[in-house]
């Protein structure tokens, strides 16, 4: 069966520091991968999605970036964190291709607090 791992679970970092959140999927090949942010008390905002290695689509311009160095690895990064980057970050995967009736499966999330 497929599993998704996301770490760390919690992170506290100062403003201006770099960020790296990692997400890996097991049990499937060439999944679609997603990064979402959920601000406190708000819904999910799609940040990036990827349909293959090195293919990244950005939904919202910001100081975050994403990379997919391997088929089942998705990394969310920032060179300098802002206070507004605080939130709950969720990684998700779905079956490959444009199979839109398939749901996305989410990781456990990372709670990021910026001091």
């Amino acid at each position, binding site marked *: 069966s497929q599993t998704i791992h996301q770490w760390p679970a919690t992170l506290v970092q100062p403003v201006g520091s770099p960020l790296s959140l990692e997400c890996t999927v097991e049990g499937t090949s060439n999944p679609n991968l*997603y990064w979402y942010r959920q601000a406190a008390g708000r819904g999910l905002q*799609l940040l990036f*999605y990827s349909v293959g290695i090195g293919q990244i689509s950005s939904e919202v311009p910001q100081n975050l970036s994403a990379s997919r160095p391997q088929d089942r690895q998705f990394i969310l990064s920032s060179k300098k964190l802002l206070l507004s980057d605080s939130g709950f970050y969720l990684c998700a995967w779905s079956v490959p291709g*444009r199979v839109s009736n398939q*749901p996305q499966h989410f990781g456990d999330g990372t709670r990021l607090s910026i001091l």
Partner: protein
Amino acid sequence: AQTVTQSQPEMSVQEAETVTLSCTYDTSESDYYLFWYKQPPSRQMILVIRQEAYKQQNATENRFSVNFQKAAKSFSLKISDSQLGDAAMYFCAYRSRANNDMRFGAGTRLTVKP
């Protein structure tokens, strides 16, 4: 771009009773998919139910059912015989047939009273 609106930030229901959560969406597409996700305090996102827009029959999963009104662009979730474990944030989501991304509503926090 498609938008999803959940007009009820908070709802509460008595245990064993029925509650309906509202969701409307805006799209010019005719073929798409709709989902309801549940996010308990553990923050995991759990798929509750999904509906294909081309299907007229409303989806049902045990105590969960939807009322899909395509013309009105409405997709409400009904929870019957509510249980304490149903307490969570519920998100409505839209997925275009043409895109890989999903659009989520702001969520509805459901409280279940014993």
